[in-house]
């Protein structure tokens, strides 16, 4: 049974539809971006070379020119230019902009279709994880032996910094990018995001933010860790300017995406999709989006002041001229702690969907769960100074911040209650996504409990700045967040690609990853107990066993991810065709074809219940979802 005939295939557009968009793609973006960077370099070099602002100003101007030029070249601002000239886009232009009739080429264009943007994000996330993972392998190789000569301390320090920041960027977008863009609008029955152009802009801003941070390796390297504390970062080589420009561009992207997510859910829900019927993943996306809107501007501010300190001689962070590094540390962590939950809440939401679908049970305590997520988000903006317990800043605030930090374990406990409550007495269907849920339950308990030690100020005075912290947040962000994202990939893969993920390879990858995480990070906990500081290129003999364990685990972990990547790529090319609803799930995204057509549904869906009505078909007929299109009413049918 053919459920829908995708609009993309049978719509013919006129030869001029799209206007300038017809000639723009990733290549023109690169060309204009590089040209613009060269012009920026020539002008700033000529004007400023001899001034005392020197190379920092040149690097800043060049890289800002690159970001602006790339986005002009790929067409991010076409519509704005058009409107400013008094023209508007007609329907055909908009269809062209949504990628109609362009086949695979639309993935390399400024495409407004949320499904294209979601897929672009998925690929970008995998590329970024590849880069960050490679850097991680270099770090672990350096740490195989004490006094290793694999890298110089200078190279090592900059690799540590860039590994951290690339991974933070990748984890922030790993679920909000692919799934909040591709899946979330379909889940609420929308045709697209509220602001499709901003959606595409948010993606291409991230792409244009990547070359500067990688370029930092050729500009002297960032020696200050991903946190780039001042005053060390103020004195760092011009690489720090590149780093700051990456941050500022990325913050713009997250802000734009956050607004888009919020407005989409507020205004684009289909008929009957009341707040009480929203899937938890949608709740997670908007809460994370809103939290990002609160958090990320602080980072923009922190890094803008960093640029001005470095380039034009302000002294926000320079103690000798009246500034203070604590200002940076505060603004950084005002971003930094909520950001952790911007990363974690979307994967948690995805895992709740998985728990319900593969236990064949409704979500346990739906409203309590949402209150829990809101509680986490609200508390997370009041805990930032627990990263600063040992800085000496405001010692009198140690008690209040210890209180707020430990309070977070209550709503986090609710998340666990909801997950195990959903599994409780369920009919456990052990497909691949469910594996990742179990791994999350294991890893996140470890990550959460080790976080409680760190929230206790006296204990933190031993563990702060120590490999224990590194192991703790890798357990949460990788063991929790990335595992949740892997679960989301395996869950929504059929919907996004139209093919089934090869579960045999996927499960092989799963076991390697699961083992790799434990070996790597239990090794790092051991280093931490013994007293090994973070971010050191060399260490004393006593730490060698723990480091060897961690490095071997890291190689295993990388192998696991490579196998998982292989499963994703090979299934994308040769996988079995996916039915519309392979998991027999009840939320809206499964009621349309895989992949969905342009604008997602042939008939506007009408929602009459929440998507968790498992086992309630007889009990409460009003919970049965309405058919969403003439032929797509099959909620229980198998393969087509």
């Amino acid at each position, binding site marked *: 049974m053919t459920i829908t005939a995708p609009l993309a295939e049978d719509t013919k557009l006129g030869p001029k539809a799209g206007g300038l968009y017809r000639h723009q793609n990733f290549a023109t973006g690169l060309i204009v971006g590089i040209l613009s960077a060269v012009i920026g370099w020539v002008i700033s070099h000529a004007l400023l070379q001899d001034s005392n602002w020197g190379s920092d100003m040149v690097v800043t101007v060049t890289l800002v020119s690159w970001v602006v030029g790339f986005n002009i070249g790929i067409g991010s601002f076409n519509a704005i230019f058009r409107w400013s000239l008094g023209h508007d886009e007609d329907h055909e232009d908009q269809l062209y902009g949504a990628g109609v009739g362009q086949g695979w080429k639309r993935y390399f264009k400024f495409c407004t279709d949320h499904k294209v943007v979601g897929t672009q994000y998925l690929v970008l996330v995998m590329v970024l994880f590849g880069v960050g993972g490679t850097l991680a392998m270099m770090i672990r190789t350096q740490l195989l032996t004490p006094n290793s000569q694999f890298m110089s*301390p200078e190279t090592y*320090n900059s690799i*540590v910094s860039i590994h951290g920041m690339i991974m933070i960027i990748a984890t922030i977008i790993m679920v909000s990018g692919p799934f909040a863009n591709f899946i979330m609008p379909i889940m609420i029955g929308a045709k697209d995001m509220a602001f499709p152009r901003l959606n595409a802009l948010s993606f291409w801003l991230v792409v244009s933010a990547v070359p500067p941070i990688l370029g930092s390796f050729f500009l002297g390297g960032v020696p200050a860790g991903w946190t780039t*504390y*001042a005053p*060390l970062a103020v*004195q760092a080589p011009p690489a720090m300017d590149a780093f700051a420009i990456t941050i500022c561009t990325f913050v713009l992207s997250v802000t734009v995406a956050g607004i888009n997510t919020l407005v989409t859910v507020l205004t684009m829900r289909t008929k009957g999709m009341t707040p009480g019927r929203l899937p938890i993943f949608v709740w997670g996306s908007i809460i994370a989006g809103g939290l990002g809107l609160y958090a990320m501007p602080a980072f923009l501010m922190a890094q803008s002041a960093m640029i001005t300190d470095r380039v034009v001689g302000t002294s926000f962070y320079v*103690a000798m001229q009246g500034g*203070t*590094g604590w200002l940076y540390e505060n603004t950084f962590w005002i971003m930094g702690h909520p950001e952790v939950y911007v990363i974690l809440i979307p994967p948690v939401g995805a895992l709740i969907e998985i728990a319900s679908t593969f*236990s*064949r049970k*409704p979500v*346990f305590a*739906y409203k*309590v769960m949402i209150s829990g997520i809101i509680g986490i988000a609200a508390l997370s903006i009041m805990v930032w100074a627990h990263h600063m317990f*040992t*800085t*000496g800043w405001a*010692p009198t605030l140690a*008690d209040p911040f*210890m209180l707020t930090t*430990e*309070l977070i374990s*209550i709503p986090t*406990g609710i998340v666990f209650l909801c997950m*195990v*409550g959903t*599994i409780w*007495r*369920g*009919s*456990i269907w*052990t497909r691949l996504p469910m594996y990742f849920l*179990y791994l999350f339950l294991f890893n996140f*308990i470890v990550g959460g*409990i080790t976080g*409680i*030690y760190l*929230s*206790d100020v*006296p*204990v933190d*005075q031993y563990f*702060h*700045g120590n490999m224990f912290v590194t192991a703790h947040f890798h357990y949460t962000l990788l063991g929790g967040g990335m595992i949740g994202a892997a679960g989301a990939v395996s869950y929504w893969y059929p919907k996004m690609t139209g093919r089934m993920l090869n579960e045999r390879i996927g499960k092989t990858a799963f076991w390697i990853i699961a083992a790799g995480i434990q070996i790597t990070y239990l090794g790092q906990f*051991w280093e931490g*107990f013994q*007293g090994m*500081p*973070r971010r050191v*290129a*060399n*260490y004393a003999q006593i730490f060698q066993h723990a480091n060897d364990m961690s490095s071997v685990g890291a190689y295993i972990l990388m192998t696991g991810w490579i196998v998982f990547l292989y499963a994703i790529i090979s299934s994308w090319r040769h996988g079995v065709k996916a039915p519309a609803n392979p998991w027999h799930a009840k939320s809206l995204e499964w009621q349309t074809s895989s992949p969905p057509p342009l604008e997602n549904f042939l008939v506007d869906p009408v929602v009459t219940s929440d998507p*968790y009505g*498992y*086992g309630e078909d*007889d*009990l409460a007929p009003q919970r049965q979802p309405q058919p969403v299109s003439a032929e797509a009413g099959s909620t229980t049918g*198998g393969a087509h």
Partner: protein
Amino acid sequence: MSSEEKRDEIAAVVEPVFRGGPLWRRPAGKVLILWVPMTIIGILLALYAPRYLFPADMSVEQEAVKTTFILFTALAAPVAAVVWGIALYSIVGWRKKSGKSDTPPEDGPPIRGGTIATTIWLGTSVILVVVLLVWGMAELSSELAPQQNAMQVNVTGQQWQWTFSYPGTGVTSTKLIVPEGRQINFHVTSEDVTHGFWPVQLGVQIDANPNVTTLISATPNKLGTFDVRCSQICGLNHAYMETTGTTVTQAQFNAWLVSHGASATSVHSYAMSAK
């Protein structure tokens, strides 16, 4: 099946969690059977693992770190065991044979929440948080309490070494020598970027910031050497910014000061000082 019948059926499924049948026949009982040994293993680990994991403690503060670590682990073990117990049992007890098939198993019971379970869960976590918090605050206030015979040591970080000076005596050293049995107030500052002053086995640390003096106290209570490391990345040779510290008796300490050029009177007044 009518709605009432279905409701009765659900009630029959939901209620045995708390009522009906011998406990070990019910899922709750089976989870309990998993929970008890997991909790016991967790508490045993909490009691015995730290002595092998941490370096030998050399101060009152580091002993407190170890005690807190043991307490928190013992409190966390039952919580982790609940989650892992349910997860583990669910795979064994509720996994359906159609695990690998393309069609899902029959739907589970539509349990949409449980007031009792939620209340117990929330109540337990609130109690645990209160315990953690009260413990942490008590510990912190005892650590901050000024001692009668405290002694001041100035610590200066610079890229990439530590310098310790003993005010009033004119003695400056790159090795940290402290007397046993009295509170040492470290007054920490930096000449360039932010460093992290971390005398490892003393169990305390504080950042060294330029233009600011930060304060941390430790009371060494065992003789011997300990490590002093930098816990805050500070540039190229951050990894090498370490030195050794030694805890000696007060008499040895005074002698050491004199041997480094301090006058006997200044040593006497320094040793007697209470700051």
